[in-house]
């Protein structure tokens, strides 16, 4: 069954080129990608992920606000018993922030210049049972 991915742009960040490129690349890799558009709050991201029952959440953040946004998203996921969703973060993320994000439960961080192929491979290798039976 196709892997379902939600690609979101949280915060006030208007850089949507990367998110759109990722959405198309994942589609071309056979995944079903829900794109939520710009200016998403963590609540909107998690609500949408819950309703869409996605396997993967991809956050694209180039504004520098990742340290404020990602903890809130991870917290809401936990509150909603959605810990099994694979969370990825891409964009402008300084090296020194990566460890802290991973400790929060982010599976991987993709910085500028990452090859699409690597992202697709990572998702395929790490997604937890696409849509586990009831």
């Amino acid at each position, binding site marked *: 069954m*196709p892997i379902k991915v939600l690609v979101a742009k949280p915060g006030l960040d208007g850089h949507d080129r990367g998110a759109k490129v990722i959405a198309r690349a994942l589609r071309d890799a056979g*995944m079903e990608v829900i*794109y939520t558009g710009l200016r998403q709050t963590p609540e909107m991201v998690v609500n949408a992920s819950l309703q869409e029952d996605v396997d993967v959440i991809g956050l694209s953040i180039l504004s520098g606000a990742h340290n404020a946004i990602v903890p809130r998203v991870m917290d809401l996921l936990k509150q909603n018993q959605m810990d099994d969703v694979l969370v990825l973060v891409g964009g402008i993320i300084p090296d020194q922030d990566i460890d802290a994000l991973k400790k929060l439960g982010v599976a991987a961080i993709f910085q500028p210049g990452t090859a699409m192929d690597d992202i697709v491979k990572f998702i395929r290798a790490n997604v937890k049972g696409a*849509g586990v039976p009831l």
Partner: protein
Amino acid sequence: MTRSVPVRVHRDLARAITAIENGYASFGDTLATLPARENGKASFVVGVTGPPGAGKSTLVDRLIEKFRAGGETVAVIAVDPSSPFTHGAVLGDRVRMQRHSGDTGVFIRSMASRESGGGLAPTTHDATALAAHAGFDVILVETVGVGQVELEIVAVADVVAVVTVPALGDSVQTIKAGLTEIADLFVVNMADRPGASRTALDLKHMVRESGRDVAVLQTIASEGTGIDDVMVALTAARASESSNAGRAVRFEVVRNIRDAAVRRALAVLDAPRGRSVLERLRAGELTRLEAREELLVYALAEVINAD
């Protein structure tokens, strides 16, 4: 009072739709995982269809707002096309509705059309039934941007709104025959663009010729203009006794016959008799025309003599 739906039900419904979509469980078993609706009232299912980019999602966003203002809970099932090559999809309808994302009275689910060609996904009908069972008062079903033959929405919706845009030139050729037959309501969206009144007028003429009683309305969905008129028309349709049930059943019977016929015909092609025709074609003993005629005779006999 504005009703809402517990987050738990959102999650159960979301998982139930995935189970149906991926074939993990039967419809009946899946239904059993959801608590039955409390009020016993039937859901009102509105289909929103029309050509790509006509403003369907933007209109759905406005309708959510209106139904919520009336205190009703709303589920949206929005279908976008799957790539026939990679089977992947980018589902973008939700972008236009995201402002309702924090409202627990609203459930929005995107569906990829997968292998289906009818403008809906193979399991949209079941997903709609699940949302109804979960207790949503109104269910808005947005089809993929459709052309002429994708009419599955008739089998799902109580009322079908066909959204179109001002036609270039002075005709309504963009509105294909099939869509006209299924419309309970025409919405000429993007009325801020030139030609809207003309398009509406042409549609009204067409409706009159067909002898059906179908309202033709103009909206600017992106600005929220004209939405109250759409609500009036939907409310009237909802109250009227002449439901879509007869039409839906008719459509489903035709579809079932077609599917059964195709299945039987394919079985003939794959049987020894069919294969031998194809072999003779390959060996040059038959022309293409002869081979087709022979296969047609076999296949039609099989279809017609079917129990």
